[in-house]
């Protein structure tokens, strides 16, 4: 074990996922409002006795005093009892029923959901049918029937809420367990001989619970609403003041003193809203994508241009200097390089930590050349391709500098809208995982037609689609155009994605790990297709990969990347025969069978 690496890692403090979740949830202002409402609700419920100016049943003044009367902030009811005191004490009942009722529902849901999810089979089918049954019976009606049978009491209301509220939680827990069950750590625990109960409690549930938190907050809100409804209808203990009861008795004097209905109504609405806001905050925090900001390239580009201009340099002159700089490196055949990238820097922030993905790289791709960028995971190689195509997933960009041009035209928005066109017409990308980059609900042909951008349609479009598919070795007879992505094999899918990329007639194809997800035999044939396009049609390719085998088979020139920088660049044969940098040497030495190949060469 190399100690320096460990030492440098020690300083890095990675927050625990649960803390991170809380932090994300509270970034949302609505969560803070919700939490504040809940704090007020809970404190009122706890200290109601001390805070309330009067006893809730005490006849303290004249009946039906309006709010802001002397000594009665919220007025009095039809019996002359203080409304403020009654609302405060009412919060106790609401919160108790909400928390205990929903808590019971969640507990039942967790138990049933985990059993159904973990054991599966007939048990799962049975439990889920029962859950469906409970889902269609409205809580309110069961409660009324139960109240009629057993008489109204608070415990009864809690029980009814508990027994009608569990199916949603059970479904959520079951779905979570079903996906978690496939995780390797669960299988490893089974292999080690842990009992099912222990695996569920110790490995499955702690990982399944975060979405249940959201559900819990929602359910408590719901339970408060149901409790208000029930006590409004007269179920429950008449001697304990509740918001529902207050609403019910306010009916009598609705026209005279509407505030008697408005005040407890507002209390219900605010409590439910509090729980919903908190639930919503956690829900967004669990789906970080909902909070992530799309990269606004327009703005970033404008900033870059401003910086360049303030540096006192003519922007177009910049690109030209770069071109003249490269001119001596290019041969007569290709002239000026097709793609020039100069001193590209792209850093972004993830979870508060800055990732220096690309840290000042310069390179070029000549017309009709296949250039490889090779590096390990985290080296920043994929970021280069995505920045050039401006196809990054949502991240918070902290630094974006440098210049790039395609066929002499600025690529990174130095001249605003024009760069968008240059990029759209000039660059296409092929990714590692075609399934997540093809639309699963559209036939392949329709997706390619969409890429034509409405320039052609009908029989002409169909002709072009077939032609494109044939170019990527998907003959007409296979009828790929009329199929959906899931009906294709991995290799066919990747070819379909290449066809889609070619539909735009790109000058440059950026291929990011185009074969990594494929079986070896399929890999070879996809490479064959790419090489055919490269050699016969002169397609320029920027190949991004970790695989030295792929690089050796496709690239003519290679850049070796590590931690956002190029450590070495050379002709492919030179790189393999005579690597200069220690990092390249160590990478090559690690390729299984590399030395053996060298041996056969001699």
């Amino acid at each position: 074990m190399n100690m320096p690496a460990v030492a440098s890692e020690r300083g890095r403090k990675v927050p625990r996922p649960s803390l991170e979740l809380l932090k994300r949830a509270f970034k949302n202002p609505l969560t803070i409002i919700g939490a504040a409402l809940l704090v007020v609700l809970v404190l009122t419920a706890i200290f109601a006795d001390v805070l309330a100016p009067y006893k809730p049943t005490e006849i303290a003044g004249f009946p039906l005093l309006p709010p802001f009367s002397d000594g009665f902030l919220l007025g009095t009811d039809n019996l002359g009892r203080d409304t403020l005191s009654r609302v405060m004490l009412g919060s106790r009942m609401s919160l108790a029923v909400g928390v205990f009722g929903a808590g019971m529902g969640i507990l039942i849901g967790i138990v049933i959901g985990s059993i159904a999810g973990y054991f599966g089979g007939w048990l799962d089918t049975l439990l889920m049918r029962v859950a469906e049954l409970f889902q269609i019976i409205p809580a309110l009606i069961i409660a009324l029937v139960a109240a009629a049978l057993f008489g109204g009491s608070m415990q009864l209301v809690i029980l009814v809420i508990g027994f009608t509220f569990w199916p949603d939680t059970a479904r959520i827990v079951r779905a979570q367990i079903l996906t978690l069950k496939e995780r390797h750590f669960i299988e490893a625990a089974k292999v080690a001989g842990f009992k099912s109960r222990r695996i569920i409690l110790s490995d499955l549930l702690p990982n399944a619970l975060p979405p249940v938190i959201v559900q819990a907050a929602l359910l408590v809100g719901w339970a408060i609403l149901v409790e208000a409804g029930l006590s409004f209808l007269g179920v429950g203990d008449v001697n304990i003041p509740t918001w529902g009861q207050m609403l019910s008795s306010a009916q009598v004097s609705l026209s005279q003193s509407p505030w008697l209905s408005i005040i407890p109504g507002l209390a219900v609405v605010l409590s439910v809203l509090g729980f919903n806001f908190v639930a919503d905050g956690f829900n967004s925090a669990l789906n970080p994508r909902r909070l992530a900001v799309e990269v606004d390239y327009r703005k970033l580009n404008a900033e870059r241009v401003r910086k360049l201009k303030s540096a006192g340099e003519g922007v177009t002159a910049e690109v030209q200097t770069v071109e003249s700089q490269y001119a001596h490196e290019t041969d007569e055949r290709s002239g000026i390089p097709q793609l020039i990238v100069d001193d590209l820097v792209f850093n972004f922030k993830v979870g508060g930590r800055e990732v220096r993905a690309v840290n000042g790289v310069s390179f070029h791709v000549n017309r009709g050349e296949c250039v490889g960028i090779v590096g390990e995971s985290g080296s920043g190689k994929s970021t280069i391709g995505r920045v050039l195509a401006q196809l990054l997933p949502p991240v918070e960009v902290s630094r974006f500098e440098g210049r790039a041009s395609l066929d002499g035209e600025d690529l990174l928005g130095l001249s605003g809208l024009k760069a968008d066109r240059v990029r759209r017409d000039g660059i296409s990308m092929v990714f590692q995982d075609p399934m997540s980059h093809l639309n699963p609900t559209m036939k392949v042909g329709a997706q390619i037609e969409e890429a034509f951008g409405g320039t052609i349609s009908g029989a002409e479009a169909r002709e072009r689609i077939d032609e494109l598919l044939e170019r990527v070795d998907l003959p007409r007879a296979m009828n790929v155009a009329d199929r959906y992505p899931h009906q294709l094999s991995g290799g066919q899918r990747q070819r379909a994605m290449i066809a889609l990329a070619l539909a735009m007639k790109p000058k440059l194809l950026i291929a990011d790990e185009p074969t990594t997800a494929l079986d070896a035999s399929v890999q070879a044939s996809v490479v064959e297709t790419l090489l055919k396009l490269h050699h016969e049609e002169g397609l320029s390719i920027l190949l991004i990969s970790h695989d030295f085998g792929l690089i050796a088979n496709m690239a003519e020139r290679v850049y070796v990347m590590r931690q956002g920088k190029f450590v070495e660049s050379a002709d492919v044969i030179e790189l393999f025969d005579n690597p200069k940098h220690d990092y390249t040497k160590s990478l090559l030495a690690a390729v299984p069978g590399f030395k053996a190949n060298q041996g056969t060469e001699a």
Partner: protein
Amino acid sequence: MSLDEAILRADDVSCVFGAGGMFSGSKQVRAVDGVSLHVGPQETLGIVGESGSGKSTMARILLGLLKPTSGTVSFEGVDYAKMNRAQRWNFHQAVQVVFQDPGTSLNPRKSVVKILSEVLLLHKKVPGSKVLDRVIEVLDSVGLPSEIAFRMPHELSGGQKQRVAIGRAIAMEPKVIIADEALSALDVSIQAQVLSLMKELQRDLNVSYAFISHDLGVVREIADRVVVMHNGKVEETGNTQEVLDHPQAEYTKSLLAARFIANPHEARRVRLARELSETL
């Protein structure tokens, strides 16, 4: 080695998915189709195949996570299906696993020390008071510093996670470790480190490996014998060197031919040869 000495042995094992059930109209898939193989003491058996070859289903069968539809699997001569309590308990210690994806092979909510100590305590490998010492010993033997013990999985790199997963397996002092694509998700340089760690551990602990992989290069470096699987069947089996240097089955030949050779000279020669043959 005779078959009787085999630690793990599968005889004519088949596994059919989608058989019977409520919707018996659905298509049946023979994921594993009449496979026989064995793993001997201190031996590494490579199981090679592409996706859909049935190699991972075979791994799950050997681990006892999946019951075969037909055929028998046995551990030290005892049929999995007929094990008594003590034999099953022994099996749970003696057969361990390392999975492909280090991201999902450790419980994200448990620290390294918890992950390693719970298996030690389950099988009462050490008394409670000695657990921490043993955890540190295990970490040391997989090349991790002791301070890793109090980290959570998300604080570790992919290579470190895979080392912890290997640590969890060897902590049980197993006889066989089934490694299902254990190196595939790692960078090449990390792959090489973990590969040499696995070889080292085999020497020190006398453990056998069933090494399941699609990567012929890696299998050549670690496996003594190799089983080539295709469409659920065994295409070819034998000494690794022999099978990979002089393949008999057409499928093995095509697998070897399809492999990218990390050698641009060779790549160019192959391409030129093909172009030449096309023009002629």
